């Protein structure tokens, strides 16, 4: 690939358009790739992520399915048995549960079940997360269910380039990948190198800003929020290292641990409910691996342990810069509103 080609292939795209281009590229490069889901054909998906693909690749490559998530995943399993690489779209996070059994009992386990004889190179795309003022079931963050399920890879992207590159890597992977798309960032724009070659970097976390006081781990929709918080903290003289986790299963604990050994402090933020969420695992593992380095207890800034609330409440439910900064305070040992809560047990 010449420099010119690279240059020519860099375009400014929205995150959703990057995914569209990633799908187009995967469909072009490998005729075993099929894209399937509800309303993805004629309509181009409710977010237009699959816009134009059916017209370009035809109804056997870009498949409008009946309205049944177990059916989508289950037929994808059969297609994988036959050597296909299905890319399934689940229309919204909250609609993945009817397909849960096929995902955890079939997709996740078939490679192990067959002693490695059968591969499940299935990518399951899921627009996830809140902040779009939508109705029930349209704003959930179910990633922890899948990260807890042995046999699945789980990733999420926070910017257009990652959306494009990680999706291509997910589709190319011989293992099943849950690909969570931060739907409220679909319209975020960024430069995308369409010639970027998948390089097995999907499972690596990325340090976005380096810092020395606190390690702030975020992923998907909260990465920009984390960057804002880091900027605000730095005005206050606190140096925050922001890590975009990218892969949620496996987690790049090496990267997080390396950072915490420098900073001695950890904050994890996600939209999902706190109890048993990704934050718990990251806090527990980093405490195991960095106990002697920790200056204060890892903090979690997350959704609450309620169902995702109606739109009128979502500003309260969703972690924002202020709540992260509040945790920054606690992490630095400054007393604030919540400090006392530590000791009420």
């Amino acid at each position: 690939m010449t420099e010119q080609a690279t240059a020519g292939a860099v375009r400014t795209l929205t995150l959703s358009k990057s995914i569209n281009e990633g799908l187009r590229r995967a469909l072009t490069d490998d005729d075993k790739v099929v894209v399937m889901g509800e309303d993805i054909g004629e309509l181009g998906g409710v977010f237009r992520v699959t816009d134009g693909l059916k017209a370009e690749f035809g109804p056997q490559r870009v498949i409008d399915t009946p309205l049944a998530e177990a059916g989508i995943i289950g037929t994808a399993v059969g297609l994988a048995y036959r050597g296909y690489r299905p890319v399934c779209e689940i229309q919204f996070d909250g609609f993945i549960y009817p397909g849960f059994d096929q995902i955890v009992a079939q997709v996740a386990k078939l490679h192990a079940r067959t002693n490695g004889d059968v591969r499940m190179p299935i990518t399951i795309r899921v627009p996830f997360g809140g902040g779009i003022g939508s109705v029930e079931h349209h704003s959930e963050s179910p990633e922890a269910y899948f990260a807890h399920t042995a046999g699945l890879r789980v990733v999420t992207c926070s910017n257009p380039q990652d959306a494009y590159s990680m999706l291509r890597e997910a589709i190319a992977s011989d293992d099943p990948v849950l690909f969570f798309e931060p739907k409220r960032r679909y319209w975020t724009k960024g430069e995308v190198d369409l010639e970027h070659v998948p390089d097995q970097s999907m499972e690596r976390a990325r340090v976005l800003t380096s810092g020395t006081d606190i390690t702030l781990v975020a992923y998907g929709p909260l990465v920009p929020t984390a960057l804002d918080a880091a900027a605000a903290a730095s005005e206050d003289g606190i140096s925050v290292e922001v890590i975009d986790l990218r892969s949620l299963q496996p987690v790049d604990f090496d990267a997080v641990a390396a950072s915490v050994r420098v900073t001695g402090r950890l904050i994890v933020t996600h939209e999902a409910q706190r109890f048993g969420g990704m934050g718990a695992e990251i806090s527990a593992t980093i405490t195991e691996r960095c106990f002697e380095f920790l200056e204060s207890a890892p903090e979690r800034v997350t959704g609450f342990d309620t169902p995702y609330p109606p739109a009128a409440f979502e500003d309260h439910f969703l972690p924002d810069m202020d709540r992260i900064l509040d945790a920054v305070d606690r992490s630095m040992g400054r007393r604030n509103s919540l400090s006392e809560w530590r000791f009420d047990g």
Partner: protein
Amino acid sequence: MLLTHSGEYVQLLTPRGERVDAPGFDPWVADIGSAELRSLYEDMLISRRLDTEATALQRQGEIGLWPPLLGQEAAQVGSAHALRQSDFVFGSYRENAVAYCRGVDLTTMISVWRGNANAGWNPYDISMAAPAIIIGAQTLHAVGYAMGCDFDASDDISIAYFGDGATSQGDVNEAMVFAASYAAPVIFFCQNNQYAISEPVGVQATKPIADRAPGFGIPSIRVDGNDVLAVFAATAIAADRARSGNGPTFIEAVTYRMGPHTTSDDPTRYRSDDELAEWRAKDPLDRVERYLTRIGALDDTETARISEHSDTVARELRAAIRALRPPEPLSFFDNVFAEPNRHLARQRSQHEAYLASFDGGELS
């Protein structure tokens, strides 16, 4: 067991407003004289008005989303009128005309679409469950409820409303299995409005949807869903079967969603103007108006009265929306559990303390 045969289709009122014979069905509308039919018409007209109004309110930013039922008034109003108030309704997001017929408070109904609540009304106030957004899930609830009616030796029944798309979901098929197995007094009411968002019904089914149920041991009826009399008759038959211990019935009401899937949808991407025009000619209100006019049951006074009534209801809807206040910020913690829950109480108090730490309560 099919109460109608495959491909058949019951119609009592043609698009031109002619009353045609439908043996077997006619007796079930014998009590519907011109006054009763006018009242059905009135509810359909008001439903349409409410729907148009809500769509407009969404365009004006007063509510976030609205799923129009334009075109499905006969299916919803006709079936709702064939039920008792003590029967229990399990619907999807689109059954707002059914809710209207059951006397829903407009404020509670609209609060959902404003984003203030997930389900506005108290289900026990109008014997109608919270709207189900997970496609098809409510059909199982309806069956369970009906089993309960049976256990109670009550002659209450339940009805599940769902769409053509929903018939593909495992839940809906399991609901039919359970209903047949327990001979549950439930009505499966499928509004086949030809689309599941952008997907035409042919993606879900290669045969008429009414043909599905008999294989489960559930008789089915296929009706012109734009014909309020046919819908009423079919629902009355099904309700009577359920009440008299004969178990479930499946109704396919063949209709058309004349508007977008929701106010976020752009139907021009997946269907033609011609198709829409074809269905507009089968409008569910027009035919009743024509018929009533022809038999002299809809004179100018009546038309004026109904029009005024619908203006009133539309005003009420607007007033309801204006009356909506932002809910108490932390109330989303309150009804997660019915019993006191220490874990959540702690989180709530923490967030309260956090909010209090802002000068002037910046976030609340």
